[in-house]
């Protein structure tokens, strides 16, 4: 399980960083952009934007194409979809765990109230 988690860790890390989320938002709004045009929209340097773009690229969330001297970036919807699905899977795991917690807690509570209402029977059973 931890190995599986390791595979999506990079994707989550790429998508969960606040600056990279802004980069993705601006990219989605503009369709395509360069590090320079993105830096104009964001409170970070062009160099920082370039680093974030490299992380997003490695995680498969953006793709780049060279046009003349410029490198232009677009969002890869498949990457974003994969990230959304992997997060949904984590949410579903929590739903399963919460459901299991509910079942254990409710059966424990029922057993306790039985003990309180019929203490003699409980003694009978444990004997």
């Amino acid at each position, binding site marked *: *399980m*931890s*190995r599986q*988690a*390791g595979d999506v*860790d*990079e994707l*989550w*890390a*790429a*998508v*969960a*960083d*606040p600056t*990279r*989320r802004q980069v*993705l*938002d601006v990219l989605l709004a503009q369709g395509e952009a360069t590090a320079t045009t993105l830096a104009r929209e964001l409170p970070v340097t062009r160099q920082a934007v370039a*680093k974030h773009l490299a*992380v997003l690229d*490695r*995680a498969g969330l953006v793709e780049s194409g060279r046009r003349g001297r410029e490198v232009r970036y677009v969002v890869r919807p498949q990457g*974003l979809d994969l*990230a*959304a699905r992997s*997060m949904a899977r*984590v*949410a579903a795991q*929590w*739903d399963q*765990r*919460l*459901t*299991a*917690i*509910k079942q*254990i*807690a*409710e059966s*424990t*509570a029922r057993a*306790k109230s039985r003990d309180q209402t019929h203490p003699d029977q409980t003694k009978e059973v444990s004997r």
Partner: protein
Amino acid sequence: MVPERIEREILIEAPREVVWSVITEPEHVGRWFSDSAAIDLRPGGELTLTWDEHGPVYWRVERIDPPRFVSFHWLRGGQGPGDPELNSTLVEFSLAEEGQGTRLRVVESGFGGLAGSEEEKAQDAEEHRRGWELELDELRDYVSVHVRGSGQP
């Protein structure tokens, strides 16, 4: 967009103390989370949560306020006890009384601090190293020029 945190909740028909024991006691955690659990329930205490098939993962208690709140660092990337939680998500459980029952809420956050950032840290370290190499090269050139210079009659 992709959510940056996960928030789920459930209404449980059981008193808060019972729900608290289910999320903090090893015999229960070994049923709803892993196959077995060892828990040191105090701030900074370790949790070893083991699956028979996959082995252990480690959590560390961040904050505890029984029976209302408890939070854990979920150590990622194969980090073990004793490691600083460089690479972890934060799991927070809140328990609120509601009628005869308990509303249990879980928030998992901090995915932005996972592997990618580690890679960036490594990248930063690499850039620092290269920076130092350049400076050391300059220093060596400087020293060799001056030493040679001073060595000349």
